[in-house]
């Protein structure tokens, strides 16, 4: 007896590798690290070992300058690049309010639960920096 279990996925696998994702992956915006940044944090995704470093300078409460140093897959890298463009001019409170859906909107793709973590790593790293979590 052959049973056919239909599973419709909520994302189109290869479809996530759109032009804009690949572009940000290959040409990361605001790439690097700010010397003596106001805030800096380095984090990693324990599941895959991908790494993320963000550094931020502020004008009072507003982000003046941001740099990202991602070491990972296309999704986490593109997410870092796109987020870095979005952060400029935002204040801390606005950043802390950003959610998963905001990242999806910025990326313009849907992801399965395994890959969501890749997309969220940059934002969670930025939030940890703002909250004052310190790297050991």
């Amino acid at each position, binding site marked *: 007896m052959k049973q056919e279990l239909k599973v419709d996925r909520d994302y189109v696998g290869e479809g996530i590798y759109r032009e804009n994702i690949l572009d940000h992956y290959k040409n990361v915006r605001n790439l690097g690290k700010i010397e003596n940044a106001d805030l800096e944090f380095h984090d990693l995704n324990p599941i*895959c070992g991908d790494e993320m470093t963000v550094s931020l300078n502020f004008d009072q409460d507003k982000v003046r300058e941001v740099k990202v140093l991602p070491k990972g897959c296309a999704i986490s890298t593109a997410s870092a690049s796109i987020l870095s463009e979005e952060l400029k001019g935002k204040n801390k409170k606005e950043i802390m309010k950003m959610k998963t859906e905001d990242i999806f909107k910025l990326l313009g793709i849907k992801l399965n639960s395994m890959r969501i973590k890749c997309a969220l790593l940059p934002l969670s790293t930025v939030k940890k920096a703002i909250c004052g979590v310190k790297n050991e």
Partner: protein
Amino acid sequence: MKQEFESLNVEEIKKDFPIFNRKINSKDIIYLDNGATTQKPKQVINEIKKYYEEYNANIHRGIYKLSEESTLEYEKAHDVVGRFINAKENEIIFTKGTTESLNLLAYSLSLDLQEGDEILISKMEHHSNLVPWQQICKQKNLKLKYIEITEDGLLDLDDLKNKLNEKVKIVSIAHVSNVLGTISPIEEIEKIVHDNNSLLILDAAQSVPHMKVDVKKLNCDFLAFSGHKMLGPTGIGVLYGKKELLNRMKPFIYGGDMVREVTYSETRFNELPWKFEAGTPNIVGGIGLGKAIEYLEKIGIDNIENHEKELIKYAYNKLREIKDIEIYGPNENLRSGLISFNIKGIHGHDIATILDEENICVRASHHCAMPLHKMFNVLGSVRISFYLYNTKDDVDKLLLSLERAIKIFRK
């Protein structure tokens, strides 16, 4: 003399595995992540069902028929495992997996160690053969040392010899590396280690499922492996130990079923192997593992090994032709049924996502060996690992999807 192998009838074998009836998006499942866990044949699944439907009862407790049946079946599974790896009676302890087996050893053996004693492992261990030793060394002021890996991904035997001294009490290494696929020459290593009067522990999680392992021939002191990586259920694993050593060791977990006689001040422990199996064990897991081994024996472990060798040779040579691919570990003659690789400019996750489109299941991560990947200066790798139900057709489909991934990322 060339050994004769029966080639596997994979088409027939696949019929035993209900999961391969499943289609996702109308496509077959190509399962190439057997290093992580394996699929289960209906012989195992049916026995688990039968246990719960027909003879579920706790073991070593009831006088009644059901308990007698479950006890006999659970005990018999120990014998089946014992015969499979050529252990003597009572040398097989059921645990929840390789990880627990190695933790048991780290805890129990370290009770007899003195401050300053040394433990030697290699630089290509799975976290489960690294973290327990690392932590026990911190707690007890012991010294943990690492055997180097050569450039071709082999254990550096000269380094092993150099690092041995009278303080090294334990050497614990993988029989087969879960990242590099390297098969370590245990018969040679055993002599070196025992000449130094150290104990030899083998993490056999990736060897026992794929090749004939004879503990007497290897002459290791302990050996650990997991049921779920050899067609059995999850939550069941094995610790083999030489009887005279197990008899001398203290238990790791205390409680019911591991005792002979208890008073308010003293406890006399049960005999082997029950001394190390406190509490109600994973009864159905043990029984399921027994069935899995009977299934493997029916197919023939040598035939399975040979089948995988052919697949590896085929895959290795095809993968090598891909531009900018980096394959880790030794050449195809010195490796077991797995290959880890990276393709320049494409992260493993992205490869895995594109393969997933065709239901090709691979592992893309650090494979629980973070320091090893650091050594190769990569974050992770893509790993394919074979078993008896894989075919060259699976490899061809993999290659096609890899080409697609390259096309997407190189345009």
